[in-house]
């Protein structure tokens, strides 16, 4: 793996994903550079989750190529997973374990993760999570907070967040946005998928709009706002879907 010139963090070339005869992604191509916060939006079944799962190396492409930090997602999947932080929409936590135990378990596999115990303590305090309480007794919002911590605690270069704000209160949303802005300043790449467009409005530098497995719009957020002046992001999205 190269250690220099990581300007382009993610390269997706003619990506295709088929489930049997159904094409979930068709000829998807884009590049994501260092320091970008990218919003992936689209209606249900547009292929957002499939795209996230391929970027996380959970699924293999049926066609095309995905490279993260110049590493092929199929050939160097373990190396790639070391660089990724993934927050699924739901699940992903051991309900019989405490929040702290969950985080300790997940972080111990990252070789480059240093001071993870202090980081776990820091984030648990920041989000007011009770460390010894079993995750099964957590509310949905608390579980989401824990999933978010899990995705960033090992300090990954690429952070993938699938619907991160769906069950969160405004104060937590604000905290998360502040953390994401800090990570952005550190040069990390952040990719967010969300149904609530108001949540990602003002957060993302760039927007990828997916429809029926294809990218129908890939533009800077500012450009889109200029193009559709006087419209909110939600209205822009509806116009693009027409």
């Amino acid at each position: 793996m190269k250690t220099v010139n990581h300007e382009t963090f993610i390269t997706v070339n003619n990506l295709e994903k088929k489930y049997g005869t159904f094409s979930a992604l068709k000829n998807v191509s884009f590049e994501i550079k260092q320091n970008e916060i990218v919003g992936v939006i689209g209606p249900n079944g547009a292929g957002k989750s499939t795209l996230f799962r391929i970027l996380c190396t959970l699924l293999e492409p049926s066609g095309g190529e995905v490279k993260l930090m110049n590493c092929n997602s199929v050939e160097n999947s373990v190396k790639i997973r070391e660089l990724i932080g993934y927050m699924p929409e739901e699940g992903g936590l051991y309900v019989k374990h405490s929040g702290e135990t969950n985080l300790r378990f997940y972080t111990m596999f990252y070789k480059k993760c240093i001071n993870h115990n202090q980081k776990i303590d820091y984030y648990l305090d920041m989000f007011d999570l009770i460390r010894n309480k079993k995750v099964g007794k957590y509310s949905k919002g608390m579980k989401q907070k824990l999933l978010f911590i899990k995705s960033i605690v090992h300090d990954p270069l690429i952070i993938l967040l699938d619907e991160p704000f769906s069950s969160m209160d405004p104060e937590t949303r604000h905290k998360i946005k502040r953390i994401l802005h800090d990570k952005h300043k550190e040069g990390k790449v952040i990719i967010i998928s969300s149904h609530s467009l108001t949540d990602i409005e003002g957060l993302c530098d760039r927007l990828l709009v997916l429809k029926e497995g294809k990218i129908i719009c890939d533009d800077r957020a500012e450009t889109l706002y200029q193009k559709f002046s006087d419209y909110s992001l939600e209205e822009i999205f509806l116009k693009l879907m027409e």
Partner: protein
Amino acid sequence: MSYNNIIKVAANDLIRYKWRIIFSIPAIILITIFLTLPEIFNPEEPDPGLIEKLSTIYDLKINNVSSIDVSEIRLLNVNIPFLIIFPSFLAPLFFTIDSIIEEKNNRTLESLLVLPLTDREILYGKMAIGIFSGIMSSWGLHIFCFILALIFPGYLLFVSLASIKWILISLSIVPALAFFSNTIGIIIAITFKKIQTAHICAFLILSPFFVFFFLMNLELIIIPLEFLVLSFLVVNTINILLFKISTKLFRREWLLLRY
């Protein structure tokens, strides 16, 4: 492949299922005692010919054959294979099924697969703890039997278990069977998404063993020692095949798309 990662995955399962593992040994002991009780109190005429035959087969040192109750011998015929086969087969089968299907249903498997681990490291971690539970259940039962044999030296059931030959059989067959049932458990867990369906499938696989024990109980089948040695070779040959199948099936794409 990192052994450290395998141990970490296995340790996580051990913590998750620690109470199930702790309680599995006394549970199997209780089942064994429950199954043997009717045999102990079953009055029947002793058959010296059968006693002599069984004492030869099971490598027993019996001085006065006529003094032994035939019900105890029947108990020996049923329970020695039962003690060896049943816990080492039962525990890994259900343990592995529960571990993998619960991870699939709670979507923790997805989180596990996103970690910097290879599919094989996860699989071997799961296998290690499944096999460990089977071996510990079976050997734990044997240790319990030794203790009982010390307390009640006249109890024929446990005489054979103290012989070197039986200890060697236990040491060789128990891990082989635990491995066998563990790989079957993995294949079932990958194939089914509902835990109940997987359990039914596991019981169907176990059913020939129950038929086997029932026939042994009726003295229609007597297992010779050579059979156990032969079965060890057969089981290990099948194990190689099952291991190859389970490693081929335990692929992230296959696991995730079978939700």
